[in-house]
């Protein structure tokens, strides 16, 4: 394989990994606060359809991205209301959200199937994009990809050295103790859930506005689930989420590459790769219980009921 081909593959890998990064970072923040939101797939689809509809009707891509984010947040607000305020079971609520999102997005988007738009264009960053290989891979992408780099930096910094990060971890670790310390557990969890919703909405917008500028029913194709697995895979660490997302991204474009290079492998078999990778990683992780326990938020999935 020549260097150009490899550069192209890596370029596509970054593009494919980006929605996974966005969703997984959001979910990680959410889970760090002790809330498990399994509704990512539904939120992703809502972000995608609302973003696309907005792009078609308003013609502004910027407004479309904002509306995609808003759609994700609205969905997560619904989830937050049910699972935090109403103390419902997080797993059941999350699954319901996924089904709800899939159905609603198909309904809303039914008249937009087959409509074409001009998607978000790549934007080469001056100077940086001239670096050989790396420039092409990382700095000739579209703005949302750059945004994912920035958001990674923000999330990384928040957990490394900010007080908000400390509070989030405290709430996810031991909400009773956090409450006793005067931290508002519900408010913190709402914030985390809303941030997760915004990230997923953005990822949805990326899918329908930049990655493949069109809308089709169920176009997220399980990325919400992969992102959920990715959070566990990364054992709740932002830097590992980046790495994992690109790995998963590479795995999912492998079938295109193989066909492109003339290898005769059944495409369906290759399209399966990221899912197989997820399962393998999950199995590997669960055998090392000790390590995963140190990072996993202790009260993940447990609703918090304040004392009266």
């Amino acid at each position, binding site marked *: 394989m020549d260097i150009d081909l490899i550069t192209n593959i890596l370029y596509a890998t970054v593009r494919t990994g980006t929605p996974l990064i966005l969703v997984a970072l959001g979910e990680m923040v959410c889970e760090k606060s002790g809330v498990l939101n399994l509704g990512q797939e539904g939120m992703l689809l809502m972000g995608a359809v609302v973003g696309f509809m907005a792009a078609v009707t308003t013609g502004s891509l910027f407004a479309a991205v904002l509306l995609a984010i808003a759609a994700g947040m609205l969905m997560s607000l619904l989830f937050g209301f049910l699972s935090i305020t109403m103390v419902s079971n997080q797993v059941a609520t999350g699954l319901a959200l996924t089904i709800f999102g899939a159905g609603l997005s198909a309904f809303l988007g039914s008249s937009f199937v087959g409509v074409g738009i001009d998607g978000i264009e790549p934007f080469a960053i001056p100077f940086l994009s001239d670096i050989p290989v790396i420039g092409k891979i990382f700095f000739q992408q579209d703005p949302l990809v750059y945004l994912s780099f920035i958001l990674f930096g923000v999330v990384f910094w928040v957990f490394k050295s900010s*007080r908000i990060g*400390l*509070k989030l*971890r*405290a709430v996810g*670790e*031991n909400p*009773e*103790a*956090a*409450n*006793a*310390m*005067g*931290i508002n557990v519900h408010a913190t969890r709402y914030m985390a859930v809303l941030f997760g919703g915004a990230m997923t909405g953005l990822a949805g917008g990326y899918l329908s506005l930049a990655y493949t500028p069109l809308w089709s029913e169920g176009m997220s194709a399980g990325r919400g689930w992969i992102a959920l697995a990715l959070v566990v895979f990364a054992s709740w660490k932002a830097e590992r989420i980046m790495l994992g997302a690109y790995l998963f991204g590479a795995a999912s474009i492998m079938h295109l590459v193989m066909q492109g290079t003339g290898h005769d492998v059944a495409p369906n078999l290759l399209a399966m790769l990221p899912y197989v990778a997820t399962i393998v990683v999950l199995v590997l992780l669960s055998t*090392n*219980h*000790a*390590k995963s*326990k*140190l*990072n996993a938020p*202790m009260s993940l999935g447990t609703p918090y009921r304040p*004392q*009266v």
Partner: protein
Amino acid sequence: MVNNMARLSLTGITKRYPGTIANQDIDLAVKEGEIHALLGENGAGKSTLMKIIYGVVKPDAGTFLWEGEQIKVSGPAHARGLGIGMVFQHFSLFETLTVAENIALSLPKEDGKDLEALSARIKEVSEHYNMGLDPQRYVHSLSVGEQQRVEIVRCLLQDIKLLILDEPTSVLTPQEVKGLFKTLKQLASEGCAILFISHKLDEVTEICEAATILRHGKVSGDCKPQEVSSADIARMMVGDDTPLNEDYAKAEGTTAVVTIKDLNFRSDDPFASPIHHLDLEIKAGEILGIAGVAGNGQDELMSLLSGEETSNANTITMLGQDIGLWNPAQRREIGLAFVPEERLGRGAVPDMSLQQNALLSSSHCGMTKKGFIDFGKVKEYAQNVIDKYKVKCADQFAQAKSLSGGNLQKFIIGREIEQNPKFLVCSHPTWGVDIGAAILIRHALIELRDQGAAILVVSEDIDELYQISDRICAICQGELSPIQKTQDVNIETLGQWMAGSFDKSTIEKSAGESAYVKA
């Protein structure tokens, strides 16, 4: 401010919960520089009262005077702002954060921001009060005593005027208790008021100047502990009809029922304590007591004995059979019974009735026939346990979780003892149980011993171990101290054992890793 004015003064505090009154018309006054004891049995309403003071729970009625002004505490943050600090019995620490990070969380934003400056202050304060603390260490790597120091230092970093301690000594070794008392006295001499919650009378007599005693949610008396006898205080705590204490004759075991040889175990739980080269023999007709501060391998040893964890086949031998690899059901069939520390969840299934819970661990005692349940027998068995052990419950169809901790413990212990086990493993038999029920439980254990069963008791309550065990030892960092007759071990020695200072050579085993010796 008048000097003898009470720093905190409560009058007529009342808190009702559906079905019970936790606090009724409580008056309490704590002065500046005073160590004030709040005494009472479990369920007397101490915890509720403290939570009211700390703002976690809001009272239904009553007035709250803070330094002479009437206020309403809106929440823990408000309480801390007033200068009230609280050390809970179950620490509110985050295990995966460092000491400094834990403390930063509880401080106002400006103080908690700069972790380095904070670390320096933590060092300074902890040294001033003789509590060495390393701010960089992760909380899960600290001993319980050290964790408590984190809690105390956290309170001290703010301008503290009232420190509330909820049964602070229940998790400490005798030596650690001495250190804590020194710190408290120093604090009080600097003008801080301290509210000390306990049910250990000797400690109260040692450091408290005043005491308020609660019983059934009401104040049953006020006194100066140094001026009245412990018996009088105990009387106020338990009421008139409960015998205060009992002595039991010591017994000598005969043949070994269970032998543990060179037991090693390392759990994949990073917070668990590994077990090193543990040797132990429990004989028929004796109670062997294992003392130790929580988290030193007791839980692991318990699960290895109950069969929840397995070990090499020949490391545990019971009645001549190697049971190391057997599962709990197999072990129960040859006469093992087990009372875990955790009542709801491991000792009983919370949502199932007492009857069903009885059946769960006793099904091998003739309650099933060819795979079918003999409900008549189950009913009889459950009712027998309830009657004999005076379990207060609606009936045997009451859900396990509807019972109070002490009542459920009576039921679980009764259920296990009534199986007539040859070997009973019992974790914290009377933890959280009131004096009356505790006596009943101890009585039942002694009776079972006299019938020839081997009994292993793990407890943090040293007084209880002295009372009922025939031989005693301590566990520290997964290693076992020498085992001696209870009357030959004084409390200082046991305390040293609990802290890990015992001569490894005398117990004929190769020390695994470097021993933890308390400086």
